[in-house]
């Protein structure tokens, strides 16, 4: 069913960038809707966030809820609908979801990114039976067991620290010579006695009988290419979610991220982007919210100077 009123902006994605945009769109009295399949975005998976100003030491999902509550206070409406299609008309856009269709003068893309798969044999077969992607969800299964984390990012280090609270032993398996977690996290990992890092090593297969029992490494570790693991948590980076943006001609860089200028405008008039989906180098909660606010400001300016209600 098409909603007949022409909105000022549709924000696609209810992560921190989307909330930042919604907060400012609301304060600018823009008629706006946030459309998203779910809420919170990638911050949901951060066990503890301790670098967001004014709100120290908070679980990621609680930080997301706090910012959501604040953002929606100013009038933007959140609808849990999945956007399926975007269409550019002369001076407005059509946004089709799994439930409805919206007409809007501007779009703010804050679709974020999703986790990459490792792409090894056994990864799908043992999903939920030894292979996982969310330590805060499933760490409780591994009390007193041995687990591995694949990856070397901040996020992989955080996953390892969560698992270390439950498991007997946690291996971080990383393809390069040193994990690239920020210094504070790196220090915590190094100080945690049940975490061990295996550098310069890839996992090439997950094996077991009905559930994961071990992985095969491309290098020997302690004289063997087989590493017995009860659980394997995969955290090897992200893929930006740009499929929708691409359909209306939004440009991406070589990493598939949306190219934005310093005020979060894309190459398409009336389309703005914010957060992890963009080519911003420093992808953090604080930068996502800030980008969202700039995108809303530019959408507000655009609506007031470029469009006439049709």
């Amino acid at each position, binding site marked *: 069913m098409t909603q007949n009123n022409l909105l000022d902006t549709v924000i696609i994605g209810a992560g921190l960038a989307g909330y930042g945009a919604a907060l400012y769109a609301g304060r600018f009295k823009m008629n706006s809707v946030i459309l998203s*399949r*779910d*809420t*919170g975005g990638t911050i*949901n*998976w951060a*066990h503890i966030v301790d670098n967001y100003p004014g709100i120290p030491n908070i*679980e*990621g*999902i609680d930080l997301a809820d706090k910012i959501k509550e604040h953002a929606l206070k100013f009038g933007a409406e959140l609808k*849990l609908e*999945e956007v399926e299609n975007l269409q550019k008309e002369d001076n407005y856009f059509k946004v089709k979801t*799994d439930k409805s269709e919206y007409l809007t003068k501007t779009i703010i893309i804050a679709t974020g990114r999703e986790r990459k798969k490792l792409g090894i044999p056994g990864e799908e077969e043992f*999903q*939920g*039976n030894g292979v*996982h992607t*969310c330590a*805060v*969800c*499933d*760490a*409780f*299964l591994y009390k007193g067991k041995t687990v591995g984390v694949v990856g070397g990012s901040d996020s992989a280090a955080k996953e390892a620290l969560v698992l270390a609270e439950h498991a007997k032993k946690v291996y971080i398996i990383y393809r390069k010579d040193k994990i690239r977690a920020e210094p504070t996290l790196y220090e915590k990992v190094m100080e945690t006695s049940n975490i061990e890092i295996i550098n310069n090593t890839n996992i090439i297969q997950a094996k077991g009988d009905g559930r994961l029992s071990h992985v095969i490494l491309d290098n020997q570790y302690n004289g063997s290419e087989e590493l017995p693991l009860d659980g394997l948590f995969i955290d090897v980076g992200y893929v930006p979610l740009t499929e929708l943006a691409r359909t209306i001609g939004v440009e991406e860089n070589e990493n598939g991220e949306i190219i934005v200028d310093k005020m979060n405008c894309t190459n398409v008039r009336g389309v703005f982007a914010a957060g992890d989906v963009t080519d911003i180098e420093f992808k953090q909660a604080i930068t996502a919210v800030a980008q969202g606010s700039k995108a809303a400001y530019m959408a507000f300016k655009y609506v007031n100077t470029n469009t006439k209600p049709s």
Partner: protein
Amino acid sequence: MAEVIVYSTDSCPWCRKVEEYLQMNNINFDVKKVDQDREAAMEMVQASGQQGVPVVSIDGKMIVGFNKAEIDKALGL
């Protein structure tokens, strides 16, 4: 009305997302905490064939993860 059970843990973000989605659609549901209730954990593993959370049971149909399309289909949303 469908019988809906969410198998979850306190710290699981996807579990909270599933619960939020059901609440926003005015669906009544029960929650079973599998990290605190061994019987519920066994029930979930047996019926879904895996150990990860969340799992949503809708009239006995087990949906693993937050699979919005499958939940919508099972509940006619």
